[in-house]
């Protein structure tokens, strides 16, 4: 892809724990297109947060270990030690819980200004003025007064705005948002999502959005990567993922959700629970829960297969030419 701004290849991350080695992320590859939003979606423990934390150098090592992979941003590998200057400057990150992600002993304005002093060598005064205008851009009322307050004086929605202001301080090319609205009420979620869209439109930045909420994905994403048990099992445009789901896990997710078009459709849940990542299954991670599992699935890991001529890919043996054909439920747009 020519306009890919970030290209991750074969990323693998492990953690040493008392119970043994957890293979949290395996063979993860994706491309982020400039100016677009890539949503990485999956259930808790599927490795979506670990994937972006490794890009930002936030994996505690030890016990964590990046065993394999490259992440190229402007010809520089983010996983190598020389990439410190990129993070914070060209890549910003916002986290799920704004209460615990900001320093409770520093004024909000100073925390934002610190980023500018470190990365752009602004003077303290200049940085503080800039912080106030960033708070104004994220629609915080009375930004001048608010900049001198501490995190406990802010509500959850306002803290999330302040964190966005901090992440955007250096006008990064990439914003990583790890469950940015999970802790917020639906009306505040709508405010934050609209703010992210507006800022993306104005700055032309790319967003990696980590979430488990498919409704948020539908609202925000251009491209989607569905993760399960440490691997990307399906990737494609947001329309492909919702209207032409190819992997049985994604098909299961689509049937497990309520729909406003068919208010009375009975939900069909996915039986069972995700596999234990201490000893990932030999074959496909989903085969124990899969309604179409074949004997090959338990023995051999499937590989990402192109589903159609576009970027839509799925990691499943059913796409093999010898596999039986199943009639899949398809949702209409």
């Amino acid at each position, binding site marked *: 892809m020519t306009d890919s701004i970030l290209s991750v290849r074969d990323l693998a991350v492990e953690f040493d724990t008392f119970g043994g080695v957890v293979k949290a992320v395996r063979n993860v590859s994706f491309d982020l297109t400039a100016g677009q939003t890539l949503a990485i979606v999956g259930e808790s423990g599927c490795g979506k947060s670990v994937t972006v934390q490794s890009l930002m150098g936030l994996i505690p090592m030890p016990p964590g270990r990046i065993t394999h992979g490259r992440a190229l941003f402007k010809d520089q590998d983010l996983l190598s030690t020389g990439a410190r200057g990129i993070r914070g400057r060209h890549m910003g990150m916002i986290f799920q819980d704004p209460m615990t992600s900001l320093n409770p002993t520093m004024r909000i304005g100073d925390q934002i200004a610190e980023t500018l002093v470190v990365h752009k060598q602004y003077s303290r005064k200049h940085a503080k003025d800039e912080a106030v205008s960033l708070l104004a851009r994220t629609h915080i009322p009375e930004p001048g007064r608010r900049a001198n307050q501490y995190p406990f004086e802010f509500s959850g929605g306002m803290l999330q705005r302040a964190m966005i202001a901090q992440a955007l301080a250096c006008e990064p090319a990439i914003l990583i948002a790890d469950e940015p609205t999970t802790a917020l*009420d*639906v009306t505040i979620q709508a405010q934050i999502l609209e703010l992210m869209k507006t800022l993306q439109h104005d700055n032309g930045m790319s967003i990696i959005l980590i979430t488990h909420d498919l*409704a948020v*994905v539908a609202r925000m994403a251009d491209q989607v990567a569905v993760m399960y048990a440490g691997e990307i099992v399906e990737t494609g445009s947001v329309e492909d993922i919702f209207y032409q789901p190819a992997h049985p896990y994604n098909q299961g997710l689509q049937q497990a959700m309520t*729909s406003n078009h068919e208010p009375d459709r009975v*939900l069909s849940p996915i039986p069972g*629970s995700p596999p234990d990542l201490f000893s990932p299954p030999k074959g496909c991670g989903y085969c124990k829960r899969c309604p179409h599992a074949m004997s090959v699935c338990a023995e051999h890991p499937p590989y990402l297969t192109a589903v159609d001529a576009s970027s839509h890919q799925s990691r499943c043996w059913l796409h093999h030419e010898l596999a039986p054909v199943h009639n899949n439920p398809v949702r209409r747009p």
Partner: protein
Amino acid sequence: MMALTNVSKFFPMGRGKQLHAVEDVSLSIGKEQVVGLVGESGSGKSTLGRMIVGLHSRDQGDISYDGELLPTRFRTQDHLRYARRLQMIFQDPYASLNPRMTIYDILSESLRLQGRTDAAAVTGAVTEWLKTVGLHPDHMTRYPHEFSGGQRQRIGIARALMIQPDFVVCDEPISALDVSVQAQIINLLSELKASMGLTLLFIAHDLSMVRYISDRMAVMYLGKIVEEGPANEVFFNPQHPYTQLLIASNPEPDPAAERSRTVVPIRGEVSSPVNPGPGCRFADRCPNVTTQCALPPPEVIVSEGHRASCHLLN
């Protein structure tokens, strides 16, 4: 079956201040109905649920259950007496199970408190219920930490339903769970509701799920019910400005629908529930606010069984 009349709960905040958690709420729940209660955090929906099962005392109003007035403040013997019929399923399956008790102890405790001491019968009931909620009977010797969130929520459901209650308050039973597991729990609750003839008060902030499981839906804002009616009607034909904006803010898992929709988020944030004025609680954020909104809003019957509290509908 369950009738709340002008129920209020105030928490004292010191220096003469009072937090009006629930104020003047009336709601009736028919036998074998599911009533969904939605609202943002701090709207008082959990406080209301806890008052019904006696975990909070109430300051004003009456709650009557099968024609019998429930005590304002539950004493130990009231809990023992009503626990047989009123039960609660809690939000956080990690915090609501005692980590030092085995699953057998957790599930059998309610039976023992009700005087069922025959060991074989109790073990039989525990085995039966573990199977009903989709767990293995061997699991009864394990401790809560050995289970996943979805499994713990099943244990919480088994604990609440073991003694065959008629009325269950489900306080955000699926919020802590993953999407694929949410549908499992929702379907389990629907099946048990049908087979046991349960009446449910289903508290949640996920509007789509509430619409799906409920017969009726009530929307709370800052301690008041602003709209109440048949679930599909409230969801697809909301009348109160808050309900309209709440439903417009709720994204759908459908990219085409999302692309064609412009969201105008509600401005501002929920104001303080401490010593609120007499007027409409939503007035400071309402896009259609008028001068009369400083007066208490009237309750308007929109259609049969569908009411909303707003001056604009008058």
